[in-house]
């Protein structure tokens, strides 16, 4: 019995005629029932990685095992268990919303009757019942994203891999998306792997995060533990009269340095010293918050952060 749901070993990808590697020696395991988020700048290799998880792209080196079997040589087994939502396109342009969900569910092994029920369930879940008989081509960007989520989920699959599931969605729909994904994980134990730039909202459901930069997986772990490991537990924002920044001890470098505003990421341990030495007369306003996943992401993807860490 394989220990992990996914096991990536020395995974590398070099595109034809490219000098650089899009993905460099990635080693990663993902377990069943996890919600795993991938963060990283544009072109970091996130989509290249997830395409290899679903067998859409052959690795140049290394391997991806799904339930102990090589994804590249086990198309049927992979496809029957994994629902994939690509970043762009990938759905059936000339079909209606209902047909797209129905055929996806049926081809993934549901009976015709169950596929019809699946259509009703997913239309309701994603609140797109009114789009039932609308052609996919006539949907807005956000509506197409919701349809793609529904199509990826059609067939009640145990694993979902989603490439930027909340792009194009308004705040209400974004919340709906994260809520639905969290419930899916909690109630059905669905393993969810996703790419997002929406680090603030993703933090609400993410259990483990991988941060990518220039083809490298530079950090993997639980967000809380990662924050501790890089002394980034707190976010201190200082607002002051432009041109007169306050003195901050410990030679801290601000992560944001704007006219009248500086942001520092600090550890709990040094907070008392900083607060004691801050001259409140030099400060107009002060805000102290727990560091967010976005702060962690910014820390790791900063230009001068070559280190590889895991927690």
């Amino acid at each position, binding site marked *: *019995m*394989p220990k992990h*749901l996914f096991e990536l070993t020395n995974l590398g990808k070099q*595109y*034809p005629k490219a000098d650089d590697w899009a993905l460099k020696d990635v080693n990663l395991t993902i377990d*069943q029932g996890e919600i795993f988020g991938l963060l990283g700048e544009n072109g970091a290799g996130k989509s290249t990685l997830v*395409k290899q998880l*679903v*067998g*859409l*792209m*052959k690795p140049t080196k290394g391997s991806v095992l799904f*339930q102990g079997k090589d994804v590249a040589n086990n*198309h*049927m087994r992979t*496809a*029957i*268990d*994994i*629902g*994939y939502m*690509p970043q*762009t*396109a*990938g*759905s*059936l*342009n*000339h*079909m209606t919303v209902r*047909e797209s969900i129905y*055929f*996806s569910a*049926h*081809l*993934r*092994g549901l009976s015709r009757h169950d596929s019809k029920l699946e259509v009703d369930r997913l239309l309701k879940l994603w609140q797109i019942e009114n789009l039932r008989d609308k052609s996919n081509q006539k949907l807005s960007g956000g509506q197409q994203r919701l349809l793609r989520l529904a199509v990826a989920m059609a067939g009640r699959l*145990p*694993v979902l891999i989603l490439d930027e599931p909340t792009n194009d969605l308004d705040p209400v729909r974004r919340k709906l998306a994260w809520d639905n994904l969290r419930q899916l994980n909690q109630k059905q134990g669905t393993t969810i792997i996703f790419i997002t730039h929406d680090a603030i909202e993703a933090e609400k459901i993410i259990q483990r995060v991988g941060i990518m930069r220039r083809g490298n997986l530079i950090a993997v772990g639980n967000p809380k533990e990662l924050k501790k490991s890089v002394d980034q537990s707190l976010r201190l924002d200082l607002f002051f009269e432009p041109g007169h920044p306050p003195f901050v001890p410990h030679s801290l470098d601000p992560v944001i340095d704007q006219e009248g505003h500086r942001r520092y990421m600090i550890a709990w341990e040094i907070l008392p010293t900083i607060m004691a030495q801050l001259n409140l007369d030099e400060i107009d306003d002060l805000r102290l918050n727990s560091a967010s996943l976005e702060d962690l992401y910014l820390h790791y993807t900063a230009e001068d952060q070559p280190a590889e860490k895991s927690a």
Partner: protein
Amino acid sequence: MIEDKRQPQPFIIQIWDLFLIELTNWRWSWQYLVVVGTITPLLSMLALSFFARDSGTEALQFIWSGNVLIGLMFGLQSRLTAHFVYLRTEGMLNYFATLPIKKSALILAVIAAFFLIALPSTLATIFIGAWIIGLTINPSPLLALVIPLCAIPMAGIGCLIGSWSRNYNEAGATDLIVTFVMLGLGPVMIPPESLPSVVLFLGRFSPATYAASALRASLSGNIGPAFWLDLAALVVISILMISVVGRTLDWREA
């Protein structure tokens, strides 16, 4: 770990679903395809028949069979070329590649759907075309077998060009060259007596030669050993084409 209870649909169900998916793509535009697919070869047939009016029945038969094949090439081969480029460039091939289906089911379903759409114009070209140019026909029931066997190699060529080409422009240009090479290579539109021996020799390697010959025989009711040889060649080429497309179409990204 995940229990292995889930099973893919049987192969024939996969083909049927994918066939329906392909047909839905054309539900709003199939009428145009039929009209264009019928008018083009009929006009070509009519124009050429003016020149061949005094050249006898054989010349008219070649014009007729050649134009039926033109209809199949433009109606099936060219459309499949464009469709496979579309599947790749629009990310739809990615969608199919992540479903638990066999690649061969997708290829067969796409060919079947496009053949069905091309069938009305092919039949119209066969029967209306013969009437327009004044060709007396005595169709054999074997025509029902000959038409799909003529269509499959053309469809296979379309799938290959579409899956190998990098973009629409490259695919369109390649398809056009292949179409005219097949029409000119061998006794397809022109009787063999009027062709140089090198063209006749090269024509043996073109599916259009066997397709045109089988069409003429099944139209005149002249079913002899040559017809069965043509049919055998078309069966072999069809099997070869489908398997080559199945092996070379990579629905994964490079």
